């Protein structure tokens, strides 16, 4: 018995069924990140608003959706909601579950980012008679975003794999399709190796995006902070 069948690995790598799963993974991840970020931002803003009527539901949301497994959320949305007359398609269910879940994590990421923007920035906006909307979109958000990028990277990397949970409600992405494929020949390591390559490619694509984002949003700030913050404790 050979340990690793290289030809089989190459075959799996260019298997169109697996490749279709890559598309599903990408689609779910992108949708969940964008939807989760938007919803998470709203929840973070509610939580930080200082108004208990907004903050409490936001805290509850984060507690609940971050605290319960995505798998269960998906099953409940897919198979529980119809009992109450809400019947979503498989794809809708998967997207809703992923977005609701992701938003609870994003809310904390967004909150941390905004906590680091000095109050003076907002005050300067007021003094220039900028609208609340402009202050948010043009002044605070771009600065908060800088600190949100690395944890966002963690989140997206996690999500690329977490989408596999959607297989419980019959969404077949890379991981699920790998499991299905390996039933035929039991070439576990070969199939997983092919899946790993795909994941690494997707991660690397994000790394490129992240590097661009860090440069774009760190641009100006780096001029100042690069000199004031550092990890120089490593030398003496």
């Amino acid at each position, binding site marked *: *018995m050979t340990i690793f069948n290289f030809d089989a690995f190459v*075959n799996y790598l260019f*298997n*169109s*069924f697996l490749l*279709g799963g890559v598309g599903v993974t990408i689609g779910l991840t992108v949708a969940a990140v964008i939807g989760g970020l938007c919803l998470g931002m709203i929840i973070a803003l509610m939580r930080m608003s200082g108004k208990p009527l907004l903050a409490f539901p936001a805290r509850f949301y984060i507690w609940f959706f971050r605290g319960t497994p995505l798998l269960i959320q998906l*099953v409940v949305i*897919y*198979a*529980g*909601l*119809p*009992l109450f007359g809400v*019947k979503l398609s498989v794809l809708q269910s998967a997207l809703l579950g992923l977005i609701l879940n992701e938003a609870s994590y994003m809310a904390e990421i967004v909150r941390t980012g905004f906590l680091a923007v000095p109050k003076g920035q907002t005050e300067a906006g007021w003094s220039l008679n900028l609208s609340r909307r402009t202050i948010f979109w043009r002044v605070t958000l771009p600065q908060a975003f800088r600190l949100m990028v690395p944890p966002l990277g963690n989140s997206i990397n996690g999500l690329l794999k977490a989408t596999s949970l959607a*297989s*419980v*409600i*019959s969404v*077949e992405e890379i991981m699920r*399709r790998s*499991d*299905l*494929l*390996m*039933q*035929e*020949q*039991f070439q*576990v*390591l070969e199939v997983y190796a092919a899946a790993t390559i795909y994941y690494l490619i997707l991660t690397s694509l994000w790394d490129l995006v992240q590097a661009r984002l860090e440069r774009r949003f760190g641009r100006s700030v780096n001029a100042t902070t690069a000199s004031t913050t550092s990890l120089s404790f490593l030398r003496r």
Partner: protein
Amino acid sequence: QTCTPAISDDHLVEPGKLMLSINPTNPPQQYVDDKGQLQGLNVELAAEVAERLCIQIELVRMDFPAMIPAMNAGRIDGLNTGMFWNEERSKLMYTVPYSQQSISVAVLPDSDVQMAGDQDLLGKSSAVEVNSYQMAWLNKFSETAAAEGKSAIDVRSFPTASNVVAALRARQVDNAVLVDSVARDLVGRGQVKEVLSGLGKTRATLAFRDKAVADAIVTALNEMREDGSYDALFEKFSLTPLAQDEPLEIAGPGPAN
């Protein structure tokens, strides 16, 4: 289309379509080929039944834990996933047993382990597919043995048969406990050696939420048995049909209401 469907829409969750769940991780009963197409006995059986009932059957691929909630939620009409039959299940759904299964014990081809009977499993570690009949059987067997003061079995469960085989190959377990059809398949590929077979005979079953559907299926299955296509199908996949003297019918009481 010239025929009329054997099942009317008010018995179905989707008009004109029979929706059955399937978890294709169990060759040769159900699996996918390298193009992602469903294959296996249960798939062909469904196609055959569809023709006879003059109704389209859609096989919905999903994980086992979601199936019952999906049925309760009115998303599927039944399960066609090679589930084993038991009393409890027959009270929850209209179950139609249609094949025989037994359990085999497999070891690596180069192993010189010999087994005389199920008692030889005790005190060893066995890999088994989670949520499967083999697992339930193995656990019960081990508990009984332990209650009698013998050593128990170290049961390790894995999500799919391929993980079971991977664990065996890595010598993380002493043996793999598989459903007979899978074991035979693997023996055919030279990947394992069968050291015990025919343990814990049971029946695999289809299950439905609506009695009219179950009745229609029973009718179709009996037709197939009549004209020999039932046995031919099982022959093709080297699986075991129900014995001639066992009727193809709804087993157990069905849901209480």
